């Protein structure tokens, strides 16, 4: 009954067509890019900030939680409604409201797809720099929430360095402007803390993003190594040589196999690892830097170097990297992707540790990651249908996280804590540290009303909700709820 009213009110606020409540419809909002599940009670697709605010107020009145969802490509279970409640999905909020080439900024709605900003800005020789490998699909709202990174973060920084201001809807359903009119504004940097808050502080309804001029020259290098260790030592050596490339990515053997099957990138089947290195800037700089990088790679035993100068050649070298994660589906039915960070100098040792741990557990692992930043992505390949496999993979994940933390690193570099990693938070933050974060949440009035069960350790599991809902569907059949 209560649910019926909730849905009615949402329908009158956002239009009947844009409120989903049939069981089969809710089912496809129970996942994101991870192996977690959690089903909402209703999904709403608002068309304006006002509708978002109205939906938040309605949910609040009904005492149910709200979880924002962009494209659902998240890799930490962020968009999964752990507590049921209402999912606010942003695909209809996908307008680029303003493109101001003179001031190099754009005002966009949260559902705008990352790459679409650069496509729109291309006419002015500008682009939006953060480039998660999912950039053809993921949304700016999701990027802001996760503080998404990408290969070119190494030089240009992550999402947080490119967001000038935000419009948000608070847990109370109020629309608030947080910065963005001009470059600097007095007052606490709310935009700064909202970026990376994983949808737990507020719902983003607009973002002012910074655009950069396209560099004059870009050179992409692919260095092929026999051994992973050589490649990871080359990473440190490049940085130590005083070169900070625009991107410095690494892929290991299994990843190359998957990529080869997907895009025929021409990687030698017996290579141990490749580095994908991009230098950008003035022609004079890139020429010099690419020479220096090649030298370092050769010194460390690179057996082959390929160079991409034209956009087509560069695209070809990148194609494999961008599709790498998805391509892993070719190697195994499931993969568990980790997102640890270690100081760059610890990369070779930690990577060895990762391989050793996976071997101990008997799982294959494919590494494809942002080596220049020390941001590891071990992808543990497994089959979730094998009884007990998921549990063991999660244990292994914990061990790998431990390796990163012990090396002075972090449990997540760009995918967010979400649901998956919340219980590792206490490995890097004390009770006090987290209590301060909780205060911030309290200041936003968000407590457990926005994206509950995420970021901070709790004992409650997403899964319970989902199995309950699934059971309900199976029992009630067709019109389960309404």
């Amino acid at each position: 009954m209560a649910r019926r009213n909730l849905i009615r009110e949402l329908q009158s606020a956002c239009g009947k067509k844009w409120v989903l409540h049939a069981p089969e419809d809710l089912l496809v909002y129970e996942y994101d890019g991870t192996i977690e599940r959690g089903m909402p009670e209703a999904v709403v697709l608002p068309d304006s900030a006002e509708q978002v605010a109205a939906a938040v107020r309605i949910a609040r009145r009904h005492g149910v939680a709200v979880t924002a969802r962009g494209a659902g490509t998240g890799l930490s279970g962020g968009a999964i409604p752990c507590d049921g409640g209402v999912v606010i999905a942003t695909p209809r909020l996908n307008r680029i409201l303003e493109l101001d080439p003179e001031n190099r900024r754009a005002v966009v709605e949260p559902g705008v797809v990352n790459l679409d900003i650069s496509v729109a800005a291309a006419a002015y020789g500008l682009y939006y720099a953060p480039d998660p490998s999912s950039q053809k699909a993921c949304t700016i709202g999701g990027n802001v929430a996760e503080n998404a990174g990408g290969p070119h973060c190494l030089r240009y920084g992550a999402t947080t360095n490119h967001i000038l201001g935000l419009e948000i809807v608070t847990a109370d359903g109020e629309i608030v402007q947080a910065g963005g009119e001009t470059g600097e504004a007095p007052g606490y940097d709310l935009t700064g803390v909202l970026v990376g808050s994983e949808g737990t502080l507020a719902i983003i309804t607009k973002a002012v993003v910074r655009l950069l001029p396209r560099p004059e020259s870009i050179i992409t290098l692919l260095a092929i190594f026999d051994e992973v260790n050589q490649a990871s030592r080359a990473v440190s050596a490049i940085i130590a040589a005083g070169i900070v490339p625009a991107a410095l990515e690494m892929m290991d053997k299994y990843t190359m196999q998957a990529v080869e099957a997907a895009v025929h990138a021409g990687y030698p089947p017996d290579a141990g690892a490749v580095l994908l290195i991009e230098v950008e800037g003035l022609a004079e700089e890139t020429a010099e830097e690419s020479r220096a990088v090649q030298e370092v790679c050769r010194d460390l035993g690179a057996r082959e170097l390929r160079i991409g100068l034209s956009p087509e050649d560069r695209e070809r070298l990148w194609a494999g990297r961008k599709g790498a994660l998805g391509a892993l589906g070719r190697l195994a039915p499931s993969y568990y992707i980790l997102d640890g960070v270690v100081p760059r100098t610890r990369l070779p040792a930690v990577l060895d540790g990762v391989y050793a741990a996976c071997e101990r557990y008997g799982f294959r692992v494919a590494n494809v990651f942002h080596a220049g930043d020390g941001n590891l992505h071990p992808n543990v390949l497994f089959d979730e249908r094998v009884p007990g496999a998921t549990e063991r993979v999660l244990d292994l994940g914990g061990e790998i996280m431990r390796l990163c933390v012990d090396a002075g690193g972090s449990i997540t570099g760009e995918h967010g804590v979400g649901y998956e990693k919340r219980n590792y938070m206490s490995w890097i933050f004390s009770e006090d540290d987290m209590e301060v974060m909780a205060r911030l949440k309290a200041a936003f009035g968000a407590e457990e009303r926005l994206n509950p069960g995420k970021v901070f350790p709790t004992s409650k599991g997403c899964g319970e909700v989902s199995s309950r809902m699934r059971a309900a569907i199976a029992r009630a059949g067709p019109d389960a709820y309404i």
Partner: protein
Amino acid sequence: MATPPPIRAPVGARLIAPSETDLSRCVRCGLCLQHCPTYLATGLETESPRGRLYLMRALAEGVAQPTANAVGHLDQCLQCRNCEAVCPSGVPYGRVMEAARAQVLAGGRAPLSWRLRALFLRQVIARPGRLALVAAALRLYRACGLRAVAERIPVLRDRVLFAPTVAGRPFRRTGVIARPQGAVQRRVALLTGCIMPLAYGRVHEATARVLALNGCEVTAPAEQVCCGALHAHNGDRETAAALARRNVDAFLAAGADAVVVNSAGCGAAMKEYGALLAEEPDYAEKARRLAETVRDVHEFLADLPFAPPASGPELTVTYQDSCHLAHAQGIAGAPRLILAAIPGLRLLEMAHADRCCGSAGVYSLTQPQMSLRLLDEKMREIAATGAAVIATANPGCMSQLEAGARRHGLRVRVAHAVELLDEAYRDSGAGV
């Protein structure tokens, strides 16, 4: 931690339910979303490849039931396979969707509309005699001017738009239909198909001439039947398999070097005969062998390679990728190569040329609203190029784009790419 329960072992033959392996291949990365026309149009996960795959998985597991709502989401899928083409994980989406539809249809709880559709496809499309009657009616409908009237009446306008155009001389020839002037370099068999000879006989004529000019002897085996693509797409794999068996026999008997197909949908289906008949001991091997010889006409010409025409009429052309050519068969370069080889022809690329026009087999008839929406967007993008001709590679697309041109009052001609090549040859004075 919630891990979904394992998919139940598929009941019955592999043919009538998506396989567990196929289903579990989707890792939900979402990289297909922005390529799916129905997701782009609605923003709904339920109308996305990832959502549909998840739903099909739930249907296979028995977690979800084939309610009107659930099958509605399958229905809204164009089966354009754009998602499949971009999926890094290699999810065989087309195959999964066909199997899921088959499963629903076989499950006895399929909606009436599905059963009627299957009946129509089986009883009319697969039966040349009955199809000819329908075609005759459509021919008359257009010729007597009724269509022009109907399309001007506001309440009817949207409803009648997608009635296929049937005009010109039907193609009825069988046996050897064209020979090269010089020595025969290759022997090819042409799939004539079901609707194509009735609606676009001229394309077959052009295809035959073009092939002959390039040293091919062209046969149209008399025993061939409809390729069965529409049946497979709509879940009637039994009929599809029955038709496939007959075609395997007919074309193997013809003993050609290649089976050339000028309809993208049919070509894609025939290339998949091997998979369709994989579990039939008598046919598995033969089907696989035949499938290996199937070539889309553009692919075939580009591989020859074809002789570039010496001259051609001045034309501006935009090319609409047929989904089953670009996505199902992965052929996007060959048609463009052919067009680019025509002197005087200027190829003007439209935005999103590889996005479905909304035709999609019988989709425009079963899902007119979505179809219209996609068509309208497509026509806007075509108009923006200013091209005088739309070239494409499939009869369904041709009919749809013609309807779009009428609806938008756009003075463009719709042609099969091979027709343009044929015209250029004739312009150069080359003859068979």
